[in-house]
């Protein structure tokens, strides 16, 4: 469980890459010691900008933030020396994997013996034994990503920022890394983690912040998000005996009146079953029990499809929000154009 101690707090934090063109705006969020906070959002939603802001790679243009007791604008080296950052882009030195690890530790001032022991630990943990003597360009995409995460863990830190660390990793490597990160969080490391793999966020994160078009639109636990935004879910009810057509019609009408969409109407082989989709499926279950009881019917089984983070995410973002998609694409182009012309600072 994360502690109550806040290690990071932002208040209306924002970054404009051009006048009135915001990559992120009004970001108010806190991170506790030992907490894993996921940042979710579509491409161009502002996740990487948020990471770059919070690691001082970009200066905020509005709002404020405190990270580990330092003001984000003035904390500088003292602040950064307590952060770990795995960038979204590949960052490599042209030496072997093993030398990369020890050289990076040297850069951070880690004592030689500690660096040596830690590099062995990371090589084993991230399954880099075969890659140990190879130069980065001879690594597969997955190896490079594993190496990059391993390298960042060569030094001590209080907050670790991971910008899509599991891109290109197989399921086993992903699980291994997530399990390790979970362990580190239990040991007090606070983590900010961006990903597009929603199942990962569900597994790893204590809380999830959802960004959309540069704004924070939701901040809650995965369960909370599923409950709030999980949307319509499928419910299947099985009765002890087949329902009479009139009774079935009555139930269908009642459910429809409560916002449900009946999925199975009257196939002869399943007259004892009824299935429907409803936005507040769980709230309908007590009513169904009561309805069945009042008609001396016995409900044999009830099942509710589990809400997923993906359905919640889609509910929040709006799967077919064409206007938002267009705005997102336009914004992406503007950010890239600004960066190319040197406008991004």
């Amino acid at each position, binding site marked *: 469980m994360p502690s109550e101690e806040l290690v990071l707090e932002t208040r209306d934090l924002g970054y404009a890459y051009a006048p009135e063109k915001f990559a992120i705006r009004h970001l108010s969020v806190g991170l506790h010691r030992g907490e894993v906070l996921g940042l979710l959002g579509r491409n161009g939603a502002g996740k990487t900008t948020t990471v770059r802001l919070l690691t001082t790679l970009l200066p905020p243009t509005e709002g404020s933030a405190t990270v580990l007791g330092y003001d984000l604008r003035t904390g*500088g080296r003292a602040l950064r020396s307590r952060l770990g950052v795995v960038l979204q882009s590949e960052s490599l030195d042209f030496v072997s994997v093993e030398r990369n690890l020890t050289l990076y530790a*040297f850069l951070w001032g880690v004592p030689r013996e500690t660096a040596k022991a830690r590099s062995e630990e990371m090589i084993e943990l991230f399954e880099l034994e075969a890659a140990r003597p190879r130069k980065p360009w001879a690594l597969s995409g997955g190896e490079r990503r594993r190496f990059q995460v391993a390298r960042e863990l060569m030094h001590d830190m209080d907050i670790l920022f991971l910008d899509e660390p599991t891109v290109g990793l197989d399921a086993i490597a992903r699980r291994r890394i997530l399990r390790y990160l979970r362990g580190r969080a239990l040991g007090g490391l606070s983590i900010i983690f961006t990903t597009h793999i929603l199942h990962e966020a569900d597994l790893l994160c204590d809380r999830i912040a959802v960004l959309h078009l540069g704004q924070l639109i939701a901040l809650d636990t995965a369960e909370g998000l599923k409950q709030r935004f999980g949307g319509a879910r499928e419910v299947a009810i099985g009765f002890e005996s087949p329902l009479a057509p009139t009774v079935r019609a009555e139930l269908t009408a009642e459910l429809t009146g409560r916002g449900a969409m009946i999925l199975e109407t009257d196939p002869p082989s399943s007259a004892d079953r009824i299935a429907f989709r409803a936005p507040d499926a769980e709230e309908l279950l007590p009513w169904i029990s009561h309805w069945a009881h009042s008609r001396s019917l016995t409900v044999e089984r009830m099942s509710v499809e589990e809400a997923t983070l993906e359905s919640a995410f889609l509910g929040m973002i709006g799967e077919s929000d064409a206007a938002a998609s267009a705005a997102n694409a336009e914004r992406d182009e503007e950010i890239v154009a600004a960066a190319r012309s040197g406008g991004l600072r």
Partner: protein
Amino acid sequence: MKLPPVLRLVVRNFASNLDPLTVTIRFGQPAVTIIVLGTMFSTIISSNVTGGGSYTAFLVPGMVAFQMITGGVVSGNLFWLDRRWSMVEQVFSGPFLRAEYLGSLVLTSLLFSLVGVGIMMLVGLPFIGIPSLSVVGTGAVLLTVALGSVFFAGLLIAIGTRLRSANAYFSIQSFLQLFVIFLSTVYYPVTAKTPRALAVVFYGNPLTYAANTIRDAFSGALGGSDLVGLGILAILATVTFTVAVEAFRTMDLGPIQ
């Protein structure tokens, strides 16, 4: 004991980016120039043209001066590769300041240039013997190479902050290197017969001042013109480095795709 951040970066610059082949070629090329060009041209170029000594004796100080370009190019390339492979962004997400990173590039350039000076003098030894370098002369050689190294490192770093294409960067770097060396007094002196337009270009080139000063230091003939040359080099190095600092301060740290 932890080294200061700037020195840790210098160690990393050498360890991570200078593979043996690159180093061999960087130092081997001017060394071969001294041996082959020096030997061959000594047989056909009159000592009148080269101020009394053999052509090799003329060429060695020129190649020593050339080391300031070698150091500058090494640092410029290092910076470009760091930028290309997101190591600039990675370094700045750690406990380092921009000034320290820039300082580490300049120090790397200086060290590389000074090692090059030593190698060129060693290569030249069988041809010209031990140069009669006074303490002032030695200081002048080192100062010249140091200033020139800062000039070229600054120039290439400034260019590197603005270009997003590897092809463009390396083409400009090669062109500059070629242009600067051939339009200087590294290979030949400016004489009364030199076309005026070319002479003007030669004296707009910092390498000319460097080569002339080092040549005078080698022959124990340092004079007022060398002091002027050093002053010009110092001004050029300061201006270029200031431009590089500003370009570096305002550059986008994001990755180059």
